[in-house]
């Protein structure tokens, strides 16, 4: 079932990055180290995108998630008062959050993983789509009047609103 080739090997290396990074995030007591583990995890996801033949998403993953969001998290960590040696790891809502996490895991397993593997694994070998979309196709679809031009402009408006909102909330009026 599993062929031992470079792609499989790369998958397991990236899986190790993702899972190990994720484990590091939740076990470390130092928020700065947690952020670095998160970057490792996000890098692994970028590797998955490469393996899935989605180079644009891989680059976006590195540029936006590692290049911007992780940096923003670093800034947010720097803003907190006690970024190292967190003592209270378990709080009063741990039961509720455990239930939610388990439910989410079950839901993702049932809806995404099981249909692909199936009873006889019939779908596992099939490509999701016959069409290989390039970045040019994406660019054309984004600004096509019959396709995604409205979400495209709404995204711009959303980004504008996010930025204005952040400035309004973060700045205290002198």
């Amino acid at each position: 079932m599993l062929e031992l080739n470079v792609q499989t090997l790369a998958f397991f290396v990236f899986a190790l990055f993702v899972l190990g990074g994720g484990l590091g995030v939740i076990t470390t007591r130092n928020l700065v180290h947690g952020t670095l583990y998160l970057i490792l995890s996000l890098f692994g996801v970028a590797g998955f995108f490469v393996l899935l033949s989605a180079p644009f998403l891989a680059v976006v993953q590195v540029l936006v998630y590692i290049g911007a969001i992780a940096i923003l998290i670093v800034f947010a960590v720097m803003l907190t008062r006690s970024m190292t040696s967190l003592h209270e790891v378990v709080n009063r809502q741990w039961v509720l959050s455990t239930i939610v996490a388990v439910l989410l895991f079950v839901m993702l397993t049932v809806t995404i993983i099981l249909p692909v593997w199936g009873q006889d694994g019939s779908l596992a070998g099939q490509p999701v789509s016959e069409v290989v979309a390039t970045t040019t196709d994406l660019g054309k679809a984004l600004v096509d009047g019959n396709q995604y031009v409205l979400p495209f402009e709404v995204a711009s408006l959303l980004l504008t609103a996010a930025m204005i909102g952040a400035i309004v909330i973060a700045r205290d009026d002198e």
Partner: protein
Amino acid sequence: MAVLNEWAFIGVFFAVAWVFPFAPIFLARLVAPRKPNPIKQSTYECGVETVGDTWVQFKVQYYIYGLIFLVFDVEMIFLFPWAVAYRELDFFAFAAGFLFIFLLADALIYAWRKDALEWV
């Protein structure tokens, strides 16, 4: 396999990049004599003793900077495919891209007028 070949170069860079920091550290540990004393082991920055705690709370201004950077980084994701397909687009698509930039230019002007771009 064909997919990986193009990316193997980045993989090689990734692997080699680890060698550069670790080789000097390892070599230094191997070659350098170790005669520690309290003065040598004291923490210093540019030859000067450090004052106070290293982990200080940052100003919120830096966070706003990071956030504005994030917004324009995300804008770049949307504009990059548009720019790649630029030569094959009609006028409507061209205008749609410019409306996108215009809306975000608004946000930039707002940030500018609110002095959010001032470095403190």
